[in-house]
């Protein structure tokens, strides 16, 4: 820590500015957390379940989505053929108006999506501002960025599915944005529309993307969690209740409705922006497509490599070391390591014990929890050996 303070004077203004910003952001975060602790104690502080909040909404989305899926019909059948028409739009209308609580379920699905995005941002900002995203945590960060992009895209496909005028407009905007891309543009467009033009197949593709990517989220979440022992994925019931309460209130206050049924022959050109999911369409209509794509890509890339752009803010990680001659293979350190950095391997031949702890260096956070777990002094942080700690304690205690 001291060394980084000294280095700062030599650093350029960008780095200084960044560090200054993080410093302030960190203090504000801590102050907010302290305030919440005073109100509800740490046990119910939602910021201490920051990762579990989006996870909870994901379950809500799966459940409410399942109910919607039961009645949804992914077709765009022609509006002029009959008055007992069954297509995506009418099926959504049917869900909203005729099925008991259909409108409420639809509202929950919509607002849970919005809330999930909101809480993902909260989660990402918290890990960023409290410096929990670099070094041994890079997998969580990078998979997190992927998760965010996926969630945003899933949400957008959700908006296509309603198949009202906004859906049509968004679909056309997406197509023209894809067409603007060199080389990959054309195949992407064909993939997106599931053909050259908007047909029934287009909507089944949207439905497939919407649901398929949602399940793919689970895989990426596995990557997100794989290096964390016992990830905290369920908030306490009281917090869950509030999370559901927020949804129900929103459902009541702003009931979800569809716009007019999409008509392929019409040219809708205005729509309501959902700022959680559709902000990029807003951007798209306020800048040239080239600028749009370049800035979007740049933002995604910078977000992804952020952990490597920021360096030297805290001391380097010096991994824990196992004292082979002392380790009894009891596995306590393995169980307690928060980053799955310890592996139990067969003990070398001739050992009295069966197993031996080994540290997987790139995963180790240098936290020392394994030292606290070991009753045999067999694992140590090189920068702070427990023997030194013990003698410091004894020196002081005996001096008096």
């Amino acid at each position, binding site marked *: 820590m001291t060394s980084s303070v000294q280095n700062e004077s030599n650093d350029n203004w960008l780095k200084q500015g960044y560090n200054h910003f993080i410093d302030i952001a960190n203090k504000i975060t801590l102050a907010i957390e302290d305030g919440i602790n005073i109100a509800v104690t740490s046990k119910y502080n939602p910021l201490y379940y920051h990762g579990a909040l989006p996870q909870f909404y994901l379950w809500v989305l799966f459940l409410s989505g399942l109910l919607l899926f039961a009645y949804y019909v992914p077709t765009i059948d022609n509006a002029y053929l009959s008055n007992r028409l069954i297509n995506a739009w009418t099926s959504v209308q049917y869900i909203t108006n005729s099925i008991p609580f259909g*409108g409420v379920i639809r509202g929950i699905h919509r607002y849970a999506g919005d809330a999930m995005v909101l809480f993902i941002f909260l989660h990402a900002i918290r890990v960023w501002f409290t410096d929990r995203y670099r070094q041994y945590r890079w997998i969580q960060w990078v998979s997190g960025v992927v998760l965010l992009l996926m969630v945003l895209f899933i949400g957008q496909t959700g908006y296509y599915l309603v198949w009202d005028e906004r859906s049509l407009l968004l679909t056309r905007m997406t197509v023209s944005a894809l067409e603007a891309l060199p080389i990959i543009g054309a195949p992407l467009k064909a993939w997106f529309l599931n053909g050259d033009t908007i047909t029934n197949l287009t909507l089944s593709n949207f439905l497939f993307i919407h649901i398929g990517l949602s399940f793919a989220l689970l895989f990426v979440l596995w990557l997100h969690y794989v290096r964390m022992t016992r990830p905290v994925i369920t908030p306490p019931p009281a917090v869950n209740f509030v999370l559901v*309460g927020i949804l129900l209130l929103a459902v*009541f206050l702003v009931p979800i409705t569809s716009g007019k049924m999409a008509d392929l022959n019409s040219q809708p050109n205005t729509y309501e922006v959902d700022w959680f999911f559709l902000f990029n369409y807003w951007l798209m209509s306020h800048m040239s497509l080239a600028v749009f794509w370049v800035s979007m890509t740049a933002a995604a890339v910078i977000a992804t490599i952020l952990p490597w752009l920021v360096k030297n803010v805290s001391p380097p990680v010096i991994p824990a070391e196992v004292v082979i001659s002392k380790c009894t293979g009891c596995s306590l350190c393995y169980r307690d390591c928060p980053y799955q950095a310890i592996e139990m391997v067969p003990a070398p031949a001739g050992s009295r014990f069966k197993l031996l702890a080994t540290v997987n260096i790139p995963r180790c956070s240098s936290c020392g929890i394994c030292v606290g777990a070991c009753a045999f002094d067999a694992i140590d942080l090189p920068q702070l050996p427990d023997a030194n700690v013990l003698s410091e304690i004894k020196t002081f205690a005996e001096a008096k």
Partner: protein
Amino acid sequence: MIKGPKDILILILALGALAVSIVFLPWSELGFTGNFPDWLSAVTNYFGVNKIFAELGTNKDLISLVKSSDAQHNLGDYAYSLFLFGVITASAIAIVLVGKEDNAEKTVLEVKK
């Protein structure tokens, strides 16, 4: 699970909330005695929430806002979700008040005999 009077209290409250919500369910489908919109305006006016929306710049009060949307098809559903919001938020607050740990910031060890 049940360790003391606190837990029993929680259980009773939970069952109560569940029972009330289930009882309300059919009633809400009937639009709360068949005259739902007025019921809702009465309650919202009573608590003074109705006007807030008008003052927030939507220039419609809460009731006309809800009625003007598609939600009019099944106002009972929406009223029920408002009702559930109340129940669930109240129970969340109750849980927090009961379960809040006075000693969240301090652990004192019990003396073993």
